[in-house]
């Protein structure tokens, strides 16, 4: 309860939580703001490239589609991709980091060497290559991002595990004869959970950004999907006259990622044990 109260006092974090919450609701129920979700890909050539108006606050695109509605519906794919990527990366990366950080021996060095190889090149480059190999589409983008993102979790968990491992209470447990598995699952895991949750929250935003780059470069979603990165790439051709086309999808990315980052920041402050003690 005290924690909740503390969280509510952190205005930016609350703002972030509200943004994320709104995005989740819109991803599940786009009907709330979109008249007919099935029709968002249907063009209307007469309405082509109309500037923002009260009716269509973000204007229309080159096929006369309502950009506002397409941006709203785009929330769903953005969140789906990032949730998938982050969850898969955590499932793979967290146990590996835990093992590498707590056990010593060949398995642990092998894990870290493989992680090093993945981290030796920027994630985006590997992701583009893999996405291209798998063939263009949202699914390949998701797989490509997941395959290249898990090492980040391994690294975080590895570092945190080493910190916790050095702490006196782990030594005490070893002294009392607790098994390694018990220490790892019941003591180290909860203690590294906080930084992992923070990392995952910020990671949601990061993946949305990376996925948008894939869409923009043309290795992600396929038209006519209402993908934000893809929309920016299409809208770019109509600059500067039809500025709204490329601008609003970008603002949507900014807002949602901002939401995750603010939330992650707030959580970081919240779970900081130094602050918890007071």
């Amino acid at each position, binding site marked *: 309860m005290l924690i909740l109260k503390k969280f509510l006092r952190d205005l930016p974090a609350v703002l972030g939580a509200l943004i994320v919450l709104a995005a989740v609701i819109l991803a599940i129920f786009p009907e709330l703001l979109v008249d007919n979700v099935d029709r968002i890909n249907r063009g209307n050539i007469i309405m082509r490239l109309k500037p923002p108006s009260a009716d269509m606050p973000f204007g229309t695109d080159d096929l006369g589609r309502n950009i506002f509605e397409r941006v709203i519906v785009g929330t769903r794919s953005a969140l789906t991709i990032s949730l998938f990527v982050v969850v898969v990366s955590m499932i793979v990366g967290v146990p590996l980091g835990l093992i590498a950080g707590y056990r010593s021996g060949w398995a642990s060095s092998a894990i870290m060497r493989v992680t090093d190889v993945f981290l030796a090149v920027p994630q985006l480059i590997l992701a583009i290559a893999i996405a291209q190999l798998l063939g263009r589409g949202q699914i390949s983008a998701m797989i490509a991002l997941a395959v290249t993102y898990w090492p980040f979790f391994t690294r975080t968990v590895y570092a945190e595990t080493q910190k916790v491992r050095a702490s006196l209470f782990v030594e005490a447990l070893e002294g009392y004869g607790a098994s390694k598995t018990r220490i790892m699952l019941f003591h180290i895991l909860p203690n590294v959970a906080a930084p992992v949750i923070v990392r995952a929250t910020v990671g949601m935003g990061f993946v949305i950004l990376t996925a948008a780059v894939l869409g923009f*470069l043309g290795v992600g979603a396929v038209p006519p999907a209402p993908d934000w990165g893809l929309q920016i790439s299409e809208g770019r051709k109509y600059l500067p006259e039809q500025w709204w086309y490329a601008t609003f999808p970008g603002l949507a990315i900014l807002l949602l990622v901002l939401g995750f980052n603010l939330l992650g920041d707030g959580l970081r402050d919240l779970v900081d044990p130094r602050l918890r003690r007071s």
Partner: protein
Amino acid sequence: MLLFLIRRLLLIIPVLFGLLLLTFFMLRLGGNDPAAIMAGDNATPEMIARIREELGLNQPLVVQFWDYLVSVLRGDFGVSLFSQRPVSEDILDKLPATLELTLVALVIATVLGILLGTLAGVWRNSIFDHSVRIVSVAGLATASFWFAIMLQLVFAMGFEILPLRGRLPTGMAPPPDITGMYIFDSLVTGHFAITWQAILHIIMPAVTISLGGVATVARFTRSAVVASLQSEYANYEQAVGYPRHRVVFPYVLRNSLVTPVTQVGLLFGGFISNAVAVEAVFDWPGLGSYLVQAIFTSDYQVVLAVTLVIGAIYGVVNILVDMTQGLLDPRVAEKM
């Protein structure tokens, strides 16, 4: 120190080997048939078979990998399917453009990030601190390619004060080639008109790339400064009569630089990532756009070589970062 340098350089080798292994098998097992691409759209199966024979693509993959490895060690990265030139020549052409861009971005990120972060840390919880926080969180939330487009929209298309794309105006000849980095080369050779143009052209792409970096460096500097100001030694320094500004600079600041400097190494990867998309937006003839094009055309020799080069640069940058830490902190230096 020398021992440290040698050991670290040697440690890059297995990582690069692993990287090569990963990309090689990934491309060959999952990718398109290079022979089919080389032969073109109208090739007959016989032609493709002949090319396979010539390139040794019939051999087992392990043998192919070995052959490739041997030629890489000799400095031969093969020939680009797309440009029909040796890949190493292409890379030497494109690398300076990317290096120039990332270096300028690095300078912007470090200088601005440390400045903002320090001031925010010193004036904790002030309006300035809150603004830096908002700006940096927003900076980390911005898609770089979109930000690039917005900059173009405002400064190149709207106010028309900055050039839209490229490294130099069309028609302007590049300065004599020393490093391939125009700003440096033109300064050294005295072509100041070119310097000016090169700077104008690099502003928008460099700012775009550094955006996330400024934010990251600022945040890490701020928290390090805050922690350092609350440390025992900062207390001691105040207690024995150092004036406040001296406590901050240089005493607290130099301590606080260790963490952000680590970040700069990690940032470099982010810069190259950003460069891929940003180079595309600004038509910057660098390694990033070269790589993207190679990926799209399944030019696998190029993809392999460029990933390797980027991996090597990344490794060297991280060694430099560790050595900088040694310069900042004598305790670190002693362990080297």
